[in-house]
């Protein structure tokens, strides 16, 4: 296993407000890290630090053993792609236009669309099964279709690392399962390293390999995903009691919020 991302005591402050404090973790090639935690814990901010959208206040972030600040934004985009939380349905583009734009980091102002670009585009459409929408406007897609297109666009960037910010939050159960399955395929069959922010604890513990639990901008727990679901830990994380049972089909441990007061 080769080390892909190393974060040493990463901190983020905006104004005099500390959003992230001393976050350290490591991600290997082919890893699947889920970031969980209550609202406002700094999960999305951490993804934005990784993507270079927000500036690192303190600490070091290394990508392939090189400081992130040593990469140009284009070089960074060749290594990491990002699916933001916001809906893509407000974007004023057709699906093909939007997905094609992801080839930006491989081009200069004068270069033409290459066979390699076309291949990346078709590949991204195939994996996500979105080629059928290519001529539609983004605004006409359903929530599930749109999320698959957003992932297709990130895949078209052909970067080995994919960041996803709550990719299933606004989807119905069927589309949640579909998108989760797609992410697992990317991780297992296409060897893409995944870092996902999620509120779905059962999904995180069953499908990811590592979990980073954040609370109030600090690391509450970091470890192997299948060891994550534990009453005390979840209570500390969410100030909420949980009960546990086994999934009748898979036998996996499932956490449910305790409804009794």
């Amino acid at each position, binding site marked *: 296993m080769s080390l892909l991302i190393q974060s040493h005591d990463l901190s983020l402050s*905006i*104004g005099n407000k500390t959003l992230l404090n001393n976050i350290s973790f490591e991600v290997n090639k082919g890893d699947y890290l889920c970031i969980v935690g209550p609202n406002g814990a700094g999960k999305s901010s951490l993804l*934005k630090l990784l*993507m*270079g*959208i927000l500036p690192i206040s303190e600490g070091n972030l290394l990508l392939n053993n090189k400081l992130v600040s040593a990469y*140009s*934004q*284009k*070089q*960074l*985009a*060749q290594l*990491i*792609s*990002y699916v*933001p939380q*916001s809906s893509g349905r407000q*974007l*004023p*583009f057709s699906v093909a*236009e*939007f997905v094609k*734009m*992801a080839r*930006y*980091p491989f*081009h200069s*102002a004068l270069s033409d669309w290459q066979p390699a670009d076309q291949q990346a585009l078709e590949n991204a459409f195939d994996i996500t099964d979105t080629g059928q929408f290519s001529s539609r406007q983004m605004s006409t897609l359903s929530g599930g279709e749109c999320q698959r297109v957003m992932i297709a666009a*990130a895949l078209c*960037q052909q970067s080995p690392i994919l*960041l996803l910010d709550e990719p299933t939050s606004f989807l119905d159960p069927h589309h949640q399962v579909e998108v989760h399955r797609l992410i697992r395929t990317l991780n297992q069959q296409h060897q893409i390293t995944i870092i996902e922010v999620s509120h779905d604890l059962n999904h995180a513990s069953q499908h990811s390999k590592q979990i980073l639990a954040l609370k109030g901008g600090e690391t509450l727990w970091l470890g192997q995903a299948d060891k994550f679901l534990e009453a005390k830990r979840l209570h500390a994380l969410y100030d909420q009691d949980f009960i546990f049972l086994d999934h009748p089909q898979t036998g996996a441990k499932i956490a449910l919020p305790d409804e009794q007061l």
Partner: protein
Amino acid sequence: MKPSLSLVLISIASILILLLSPMLGLDAQVNAEIKHRIMTEIRIPRVLFAFVAGSGLALCGMVFQAMFHNPLATPFTLGVASGASLGAALYVSLGLSFSFLGINGTSFAAFSGALLAISIVYGISRFRQGFSTETLLLTGVAISFFFSSLILFTQYLSNVTDSFRILRWLMGELSIVGYGDLMQLLPFVTLCVAIIIWLSRELNLLMAGDDIAISRGVAVKQVRYILFFSTSMCVGAIVALCGPIGFIGMMVPHICRLIVGTDHRWLIPASLMFGGGFLVVCDTIARLIIAPAEIPVGVITTLLGGPFFLWLLIRSRSKTA
């Protein structure tokens, strides 16, 4: 309709306008030699000047709309034009007179004012994290008012001749003679157009929002600074020579977007052609409507632009609601 076909139609219409409008309103009684002189020394340079100025204004408006993801964000609504006007008004009333590399000092004064305005507006939006586009627009409106009152103050303190010059110029006019002004304007607009064409892919990505643009590899901060600088230069040069001609930067790119779509590879040439042709039409109307007298062209564009602004405002409200 395909964007390429729409672009060709817009271009043909604009070129026809460019060719026909110098002929309009030419007195048939005048002898051929005078006619010829009117055409070559007044009409043709004026039409060309209007075309270049209109193109530049439309293009700068298009850039602002793309950067702020809002059709109401233009160099005019964000106070850049009033900053440029203040710079130029101060230059006139202080009786300054200098030129650099053959470029008139008014242009430099207007450019400085434009850059000052955009720095203030953008600075405030950066300082207040999580600002909305509405906040940005309101900041622009506030800056516009502030600068406008400073212009009035400057004008009040000037002597009668300068005061009238400032007033007439503030209305936006194109009554130029000869090719001198065109040569003053052309280098700035050309440079700005070149930079914007160079950055057309970045503009497309900026329309998807800053986060997506950054994640695709756009150095958003640097691109923004380059665009602010070049549009300030272009708007400054135009405002210095013909006053703040409003609303073209808002109307033209928005209409072009409805015709050719949002891809800047089509939108840039469409805005250039449409903007140029549009200002020539407005100027021809301004020249003919109460001939032999002339109305300042800014009056015409604002008369058309005001209702259009309201229409956009109502439309965007009902869309978000």
